[in-house]
């Protein structure tokens, strides 16, 4: 058992990235993720890495694009409004099949919104965010330990599938302090023969590019990319189940909402209500199987979210609308209380899910 250190979620991400071999970070200040940039600014110069505060999120993600083209592990981080700006680069990274790690410590929106925690970028993250057909691997940590572990995992998956991995956290996860074990196991980056490192006049030039003017070619690139996505869906889906064995009511929640929900579930169990939690850890690929399974026996499902209800659509799709799915939510930077979730559980138990 390794020694644990007390860290903020944002700092855990930064340190885990360094442990994963990331030596290049490009960012732009925005609350509530700025600790990541501050941590990198301190650490990178001491380990021969790059910390650069870019002129904008647009520039930062393009710097990431440049470093990734050269084959290195590279990351950027931001919060919701900044991720909208980075979406241009996210689409280009996808089009050029480049690996990268992008962190979104979400805050309430839309527009400039607020600076308090939110999960309202779920659609943006799981549907791609930018233009065109593509996905990112979206990882949703629910503890500071997971912030660290999923950061390493994010780099590994990005390299393995030549995709962007996004850590979709929120202001609470970024700011909270918890003990973390940093003895993280890391698979080194694979060979990247496609990288632009200079031909040394000994090979044909490598081209990193997302332009493809012949529609037949562009179509086949899209088909090939989605074949790869299918492999990701088959092999990399992650979730946690909590008290689901006998559950008649299933709560779907990720990140901070899952932690609140666990408290509510414990309280409801004391009242004799059979309720459990499915916590998606990968939001894309979404863990469809446990929801499909649960839909056969459960009477109702509740999606607990810090948004106006976004993941609920995936819960309905995954459960094929066999059971009623209700929303228990707060928005704009507010967090559902355990009492609010408990009320939703009681209502579901009373109505047998029939609202």
């Amino acid at each position, binding site marked *: 058992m390794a020694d644990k250190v007390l860290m903020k979620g944002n700092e855990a991400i930064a340190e885990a990235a360094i442990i994963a071999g990331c030596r*290049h970070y*490009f960012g732009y200040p925005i609350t509530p993720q700025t600790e990541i940039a501050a941590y990198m600014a301190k650490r990178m110069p001491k380990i021969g890495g*790059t910390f*650069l505060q*870019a*002129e*904008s999120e*647009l*520039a*930062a993600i*393009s*710097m*990431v*694009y*440049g*470093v*990734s*083209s*050269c084959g*290195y592990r*590279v990351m950027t981080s931001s919060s919701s409004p900044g991720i909208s700006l980075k979406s*241009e*680069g996210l689409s*280009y990274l996808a089009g*050029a099949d480049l690996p990268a790690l992008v962190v979104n410590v979400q805050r309430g929106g839309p527009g400039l919104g607020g600076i308090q925690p939110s999960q309202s970028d779920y659609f943006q993250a799981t549907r791609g965010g930018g233009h065109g057909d593509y996905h990112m691997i979206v990882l949703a940590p629910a503890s500071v330990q997971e912030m660290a572990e999923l950061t390493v995992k994010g780099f590994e998956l990005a390299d393995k599938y030549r995709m962007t991995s996004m850590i979709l956290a929120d202001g609470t996860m970024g700011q909270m302090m918890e003990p973390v074990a940093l003895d993280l196991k890391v698979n080194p980056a694979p060979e990247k023969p496609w990288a*632009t*490192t*200079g*031909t*040394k*006049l*000994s090979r044909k*030039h*490598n*081209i*990193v*590019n*997302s*332009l493809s003017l012949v529609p037949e070619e562009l179509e086949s690139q899209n088909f090939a990319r989605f074949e790869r996505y299918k492999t990701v869906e088959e092999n990399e889906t992650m979730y946690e189940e909590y008290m689901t064995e006998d559950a008649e009511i299933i709560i779907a929640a990720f990140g901070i909402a899952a932690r609140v929900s666990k408290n509510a579930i414990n309280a409801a169990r004391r009242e004799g209500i059979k309720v459990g939690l499915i916590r998606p850890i990968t939001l894309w690929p979404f863990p469809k199987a446990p929801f499909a399974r649960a839909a056969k026996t459960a009477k109702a499902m509740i999606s607990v979210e810090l948004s106006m209800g976004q993941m609920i659509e995936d819960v309905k799709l995954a459960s094929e609308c066999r059971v009623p799915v209700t929303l228990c939510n707060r928005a704009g930077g507010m967090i559902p209380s355990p009492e609010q979730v408990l009320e939703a559980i009681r209502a579901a138990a009373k109505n047998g899910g029939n609202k």
Partner: protein
Amino acid sequence: MVVFDKPHALTDTPFHYCPGCTHGIIHRLVAEVLDELGIEGKTIGIAPVGCSVMAYNYFNCDMIEAAHGRAPAVATGVKRANPDNIVFSYQGDGDLASIGMAETVHAAARNENITVIFINNAIYGMTGGQMAPTSLVGQVTQTSPYGRDPKMCGYPVKICEMLSQLEGPEYLERVTVNSVKNARRAKAAIKKAFENQIAGKGFSLVEVLSSCPTNWGMTPDAALKWIDDKMIPYYPLGVYKDRSAKEEN
């Protein structure tokens, strides 16, 4: 003895540019410089969005195609990760002076050790001839059909003059390729811009006044003359900044 042939740093792919477009001349000058400095094998080029988007097919060195205007940011990433490689961006006026202005200014301000080849032909070519940030006052384009009116669209941007106000950049020069004499000067400037990078001196930008016969609605020959008659008076050729030369004096 062969005294002139296609440089090694250019591939055999024929350029897609319109007849008489001077992009081709500038591509060749860059490639000749890569040959002469013996740096093709360690050079990484960044292509823009615009007419020269497919520059990645023409240069034999490793190439990256950037999002519109972001080439200096991509180049920054590449250079920071690989300081021993030579990194250049090749960008048009829409890319560099409009949508990518922030990336341009900040790469210059940071004195990023890269080489920027800036093609100013006062128009958006690829999309069919719209007004560029560098279109001249009175210039008729698809989106300034009555001529560029400064009351409505302001004045054309002078990149070299503007960047010369910054402490950061090492070297800024404006050249053109509308005659053999001018093309030779342009090549010397491009060579210096790469030599500066090799010497670690920092941000070097060469602005090349270039022609667009198709969208200017002129013969290739008339377009070269238009550079002399219309462009150079507004965009004077010359060195706008050369820090090392200044320090030596």
